[in-house]
């Protein structure tokens, strides 16, 4: 049985851990609200962008001159996986679940004989993927200095990806991130951004919309729009990821706080029991000593 002093120390240390996790939970809650607001604000733009692009894509369709960002390179030999994770840990399974999804995809692609390239955003994903797939890394984007995610950050990543695409480094690009569902549920998601894909099944039922005039021309508008579309998708993913990270951290820290509470309760009972045992022992010694006289 551990002695009283040890137990007391453990209780004190678990208590201070609980204080820290509690504080982290509250910080995450505040940040979550901000991240959710940011995601909310970005939604109108992303939705409109998607609507206009899918309309345009239908108009230009599979015609000869369709831009490569839409039609693809005609191959799917080289895949670029953009894996977005957090810069920090202590957020439950947040990072691992993205990495797990990416790993599954990587092994699938490799089995099919494709070449895989990896671009990571966020330190944690890089650390986890480096273990098995260090040879496939083509780049890393560090967002640890970024206090508040802006469109400029997404645009930077997008121009990096687009530059590689123009240079013919890959055929298909997919982004991996956590879609924010609720505080307790974030869904790891993979979205293909190049070549662009649209939910045609969903749109097909709706009216095809009015016939638009395009200025300067359909191709020129599309040419301008597609890179923006990629940036927007990346921006949306970053924001979803940020909200998910805070949500995951909040619930992880909530669990940790509760666990610490349980542990303190258990340790306190044990402490009281052993203290009682010590007292009983002393009493027995005194009484038996008195009886012996």
């Amino acid at each position, binding site marked *: 049985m551990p002695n009283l002093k040890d137990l007391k120390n453990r209780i004190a240390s678990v208590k201070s851990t609980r204080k820290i996790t509690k504080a982290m939970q509250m910080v995450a809650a505040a940040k979550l609200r901000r991240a959710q607001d940011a995601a909310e604000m970005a939604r109108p*733009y992303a939705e409109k962008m998607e609507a*206009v692009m899918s309309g345009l894509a239908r108009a230009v369709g599979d015609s000869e001159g369709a831009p490569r960002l839409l039609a693809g390179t005609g191959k799917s030999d080289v895949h670029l996986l953009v894996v977005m994770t957090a810069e920090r840990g202590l957020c439950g399974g947040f990072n691992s679940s993205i990495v797990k999804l990416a790993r599954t995809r990587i092994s699938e692609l490799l089995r099919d004989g494709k070449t895989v390239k990896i671009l990571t955003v966020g330190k944690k994903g890089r650390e986890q993927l480096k273990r098995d797939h260090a040879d496939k890394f083509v780049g890393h984007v560090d967002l640890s200095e970024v206090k508040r995610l802006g469109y400029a950050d997404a645009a930077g990543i997008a121009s990096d990806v687009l530059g590689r695409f123009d240079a013919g480094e890959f055929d298909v690009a997919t982004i991996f991130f956590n879609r924010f569902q609720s505080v307790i549920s974030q869904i790891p998601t993979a979205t293909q951004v190049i070549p662009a894909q649209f939910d045609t099944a969903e749109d097909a039922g709706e009216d095809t919309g009015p016939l638009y005039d395009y200025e300067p021309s359909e191709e020129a508008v599309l040419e301008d729009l597609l890179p923006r579309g990629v940036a927007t998708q990346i*921006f949306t993913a970053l924001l979803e990821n940020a909200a998910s990270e805070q949500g995951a951290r909040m619930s992880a820290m909530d669990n940790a706080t509760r666990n610490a509470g349980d542990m303190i309760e258990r340790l306190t009972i044990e402490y009281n029991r052993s203290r009682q045992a010590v007292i009983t022992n002393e009493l027995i010694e005194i009484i038996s000593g008195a009886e012996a006289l």
Partner: protein
Amino acid sequence: MAAKMQFDLVSPERRLASLEVEAVQIPGTDGDMTAMADHAPMITTLRPGVLRVDGAGSGAETAYFVTGGFADVAGPSVTVLAERALPVSEVTAEIMDGFIAEARAAHDKARAASDAPDTAADAAAKLLADMEAAKGHMLG
């Protein structure tokens, strides 16, 4: 009084305006245009310039500086998706100089990349010129 239509100005980070207006002056790539209610549906790309809103009612901000993006004009509504946008009243010489410096950097980069098609350098040069014109136009 002219018929009203819905006008939305959104940037990737937030919705800047959503109001009922009579007409919107759009700085299109091929030239300025004004859209009123029941305009024929069209989509145009934007050049850096000033977007003006008429008949929004008093108190509402009526001019915005946009750095690019595109506008979706569809009968009863006009939606402008700007890359970056801010009310003209908030634009200062420093902000414009920042944009111009960015455009210039992009231009230099496009020109330096010798294997890049001329169109990229041309586009960057046009962007730079438009930025400078917009600055002159707004700040005198």
